[in-house]
């Protein structure tokens, strides 16, 4: 048995070598397909992490009406502090707000020179508890307090958040659809290549049948070829993306991430890389398994 398996493995590698051009084209196509799929996956993965990080740091700022006096502010502050979602609450008076603005405009103080009175409202900076730090949690909290008449405005980056979530969802759906399409595409590419390889070795297969080779013995090397092509294609795609991301990271992504406050760019970890390789091998195997009918059609 072991001799047969070794012979089949040897035969698979020989076939790949003998059909080098066809093998190269197939593996390249699989590589390109996987690069596209994995690039989308990486974008979705990083957007997802970015979303989590961003929500984690999310702060809600409520601005008081100009008419709100100290008693109203204290009452509102107490009411909000008592809410189960709230972790910390910090009061920023109109005066403190102006000081903060002046600090942030250091060197450009002239902008504020024409002001006769402080236009900035008093505000509360609210940080929610960890368990409520989600998009839904924040929106529910905001909806709960928005009826308060003492409040002029509630700010939590809602427009930005909505846009971000729309883009994130679009990427997620696109990458899922693209992934399915490209996996089918890979399957057809492998399937057709194996068919071409079978056809190019038609005589050899006929001779194998003549001398008493079993169907399994004839088909096994083709299965191995499919697995190798899928595995190598996925492997090269991972390697290519790893190199590209690393080179790109050093030049551009670091500054982009710093700007967005997104943290480090996340690459596929070992377990996902393993899954990608196994997926490549399985697609290769499926492609070759379903091309095997053409072998049975050779009537010898």
């Amino acid at each position, binding site marked *: 048995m072991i*001799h047969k398996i070794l012979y089949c493995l040897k035969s698979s590698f020989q076939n790949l070598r*003998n059909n080098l051009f066809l093998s190269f084209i197939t593996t390249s196509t699989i590589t390109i397909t996987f690069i596209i799929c994995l690039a989308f996956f990486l974008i979705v993965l990083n957007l997802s992490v970015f979303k989590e990080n961003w929500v984690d740091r999310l702060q809600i700022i409520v601005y008081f009406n100009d008419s709100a006096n100290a008693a109203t502010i204290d009452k509102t502050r107490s009411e909000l502090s008592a809410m189960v979602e709230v972790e910390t609450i910090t009061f920023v008076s109109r005066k403190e707000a102006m000081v903060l603005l002046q600090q942030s405009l250091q060197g450009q103080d002239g902008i504020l020179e024409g002001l006769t009175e402080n236009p900035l409202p008093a505000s509360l900076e609210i940080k929610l508890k960890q368990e409520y730090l989600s998009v839904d949690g924040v929106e529910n909290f905001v909806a709960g307090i928005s009826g308060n008449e003492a409040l002029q405005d509630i700010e939590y980056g809602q427009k930005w958040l909505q846009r971000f979530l729309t883009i994130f969802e679009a990427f997620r759906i696109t990458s899922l659809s693209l992934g399915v399409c490209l996996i089918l595409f890979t399957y057809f590419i492998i399937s057709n290549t194996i068919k071409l390889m079978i056809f190019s070795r038609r*005589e050899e297969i*006929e*001779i194998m049948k003549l*001398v*008493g080779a079993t*169907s399994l*013995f004839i088909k096994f090397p083709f299965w191995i070829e499919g697995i190798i092509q899928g595995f190598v294609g996925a492997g090269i795609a991972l390697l290519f993306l790893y190199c590209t991301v690393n080179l790109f990271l050093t030049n551009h992504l670091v500054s982009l991430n710093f700007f967005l406050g997104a943290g480090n760019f996340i690459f596929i970890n070992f377990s996902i890389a393993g899954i990608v390789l196994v997926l490549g091998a399985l697609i290769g195997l499926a492609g070759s398994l379903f091309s095997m009918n053409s072998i049975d059609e050779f009537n010898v």
Partner: protein
Amino acid sequence: MIQLHQVSKLYGSNIPALSDISLTIPKGEFVFVTGPSGAGKTTLLKLIFSSERPSQGEIVVDGVNIARIKQSAIPYFRRKIGVVFQDFKLINSKTVYDNVAFTLDIVGTQRKIVKKKVWQVLKWVGLLPKKDSYPPCLSGGEQQRVAIARAIINNPVLLLADEPTGNLDPDLALEIMKLLKAINARGTTIVIATHNQAMAQRFSDNIITLAHGQIQTNSQ
């Protein structure tokens, strides 16, 4: 060794290749099947080799009723039979050695035994010095000797040859026929399909002549 009982083979719906053939070939015989082109010689060999199924009748080869053999059992049945064709049917991308060893590889024979057997059989057919050559670099006679080596390496009980000398000049044809005779002398039953009546008469008294898919004469 081979028994055919009222065997007929139709191609398509109504084109008879063989009609009502009954014959017996005992073990160890050297038999020629002759007749003009289209007489049914190749079809007869294909039926014996289980490459085709008979439309009617029974075929028993070495105790196996191949008219009713399961598809999955055919490879195992074929390992007991050697086949040689007019066009040699060698794998051009494999060396002479690999072409012959191939038959043993598919049954999972140990490498050491494969090497020993291939060397023996190549020496016997006189091709050991060319074991590393590829078929296209060999003469027609040499290619046919490789095909014969491949056919006999498993010590088959039966060797079928379909026009084995059809592509060869008379000297090479004679050489191949002598080789087949030598194989027969070792106990292997040999059935050769040929249109060359003179060649058949020269090498055997057992000649089955076919015409229009029927046995015309059987000198057995």
